[in-house]
């Protein structure tokens, strides 16, 4: 087995950005790995994306026609299993996305592949190595895949740059895979969740609060502080899960991706899913009592101090 197979991702007729990030990730190990770099796209209209996927370093685009309009986990699983059989790659890269969570681990389990998810770095010595978080990202683990002829990695979005288009054309090949009757779920509809009173993606200054605020009864205090500060209030997921704040205010992978001039995070430890939604803010200031909180890894300014003491002082100063 040799070469690299990248699995692109589309949603509702659009190529998702992670697809071209995966091409960049693949290019980092293409030379030492040897062999070709192929990018596969699965879908009812797969061929439509062949041009978009013709990025630098890609040797071939593979298109797989699927008998369903949108992503279906069991169809994608069968298609990827079949692609691995026919193309015999040594390394397969997919995005660490909600879609992949529904089928990539099943492919790895059934085929006995090397496997790691949410990978943030890939290297190649004699074989592939991967890096990922451990203990809630407080440590990083280096992983090997001994004895595996093929390894499937799901790669964290937003880590690798988006690959630019190739200078010339890249050959495309349609791969016929029998996917009829494979689907085991039936799509009903898409629903846009969380339309709310405010669009936090438009705010220049977000005051964002998380678990550290401890109690629902403290929320009015932060609403008031945000107003005094001229900020818009946003939140991390636990406050939405608890029903304390509407999902329209949620920053993160499953909420909104924001890019304000200032992001002031109070009592947010910084789970991966949260960081995905705010790491590109111009200036990030984080206040947290845990000096090891992952949010300090992306913040420009940090303070390890009790947030209520800081809030007391902010309230006085802004009076």
């Amino acid at each position, binding site marked *: 087995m040799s070469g690299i197979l990248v699995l692109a991702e589309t949603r509702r007729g659009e190529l998702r950005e992670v697809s071209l990030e995966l091409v960049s990730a693949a290019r980092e190990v293409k030379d030492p790995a040897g062999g070709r770099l192929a990018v596969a796209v699965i879908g009812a209209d797969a061929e439509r994306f062949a041009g978009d996927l013709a990025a630098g370093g890609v040797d071939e685009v593979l298109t797989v026609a699927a008998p369903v309009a949108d992503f279906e986990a069991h169809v994608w699983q069968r298609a990827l299993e079949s692609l691995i059989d026919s193309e015999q790659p040594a390394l397969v890269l997919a995005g660490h996305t909600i879609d992949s969570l529904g089928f990539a681990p099943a492919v790895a389990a059934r085929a006995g592949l090397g496997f790691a998810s949410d990978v943030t770095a890939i290297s190649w010595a004699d074989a592939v190595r991967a890096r990922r978080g451990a203990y809630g990202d407080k440590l990083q683990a280096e992983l090997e895949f001994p004895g595996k002829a093929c390894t499937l990695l799901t790669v964290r979005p937003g880590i690798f740059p988006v690959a630019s288009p190739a200078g010339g054309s890249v050959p495309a090949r349609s791969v016929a895979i029998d996917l009829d009757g494979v689907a085991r779920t039936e799509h009903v*509809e*898409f629903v846009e969740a969380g339309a709310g009173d405010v669009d936090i993606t438009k705010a220049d200054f977000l005051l964002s609060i998380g678990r550290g605020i401890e109690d629902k009864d403290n929320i009015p205090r932060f609403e008031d502080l945000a107003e005094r500060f001229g900020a818009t209030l946003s939140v991390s997921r636990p406050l939405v899960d608890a029903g304390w704040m509407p999902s329209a205010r949620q920053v993160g992978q499953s909420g909104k991706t924001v890019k304000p001039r200032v992001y002031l995070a109070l009592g947010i430890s910084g789970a991966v899913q949260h960081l995905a939604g705010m790491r590109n803010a111009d200036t990030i200031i984080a206040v947290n009592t845990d000096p090891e909180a992952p949010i300090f890894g992306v913040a420009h300014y940090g303070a390890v101090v009790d947030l209520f003491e800081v809030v007391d002082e902010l309230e006085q100063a802004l009076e």
Partner: protein
Amino acid sequence: MKIVVAVKQVAALDEEFELLDDGAGVDPDFLEWDLNEWDTFSLEAALELRDSAGGEGDEVVAITVGEEEAEEGLRSCLAKGADRAIRVWDESLAGADALAVARVLAAVLERESPDLVLCGVQSSDAVNGSTGTALAGYLDMPRVAVVTHLDWDAAGGTATVHRELEGGLIEVLRIRTPALLTIQTGINEPRYATLRAIKQAREKPLELVSPDGLGLDEAAVQAAAGSRTVALAPPERGAGAEMLDGSADAVAARIIEIVGERMAG
């Protein structure tokens, strides 16, 4: 109706910790254990389904792969209302990754034949997001990952679920059961156990079984493993944050100053 909930006792690092001599694990003296947050939601979902069905013989079974610390997590599932629990362990499972754990769980489920299997989307320590879907793969069971709403017609053998996509988009879909669902936080409001229930939970059945007892030999579990951890290290922080020192009033003053500069600039 039988619902199996696969749970995990997760480890959080103490503020100060030491690695094992091989550098590939954390010294267990520096770990604190708790039931995975996601699993409190999947357990609650199972209990609500069982209670609303209200049938004789309906049961919720909590299962886990884990050493002795995991017993406490199973006891808390029993205290909240699970009917019985199964823990799989022997020393050969130390350090098992998501695929190896899924392989072991698959052997339990082959014995239990549930109508519905619920897992958390991910665990807070490993954050693989993989065990549930790998388990469905081994069992060739239909599955949906990252479920935020669940409406199950047990008699009709279908469920309508919401799948939470990125950016606040929801997909509504239907699936035939038996099926496996990975449950996202916020789907419900997990209950707390009463003191009385905690006491009663000690009387509920908690079975300890080895992989061998499930007909799995050590080689099969090892072959299933997807990776091997060769080293653990603190993350590279990049340039890192500039830390604001001093008392709360000094920190507050600096924050106001920085915000003022950045918003004016």
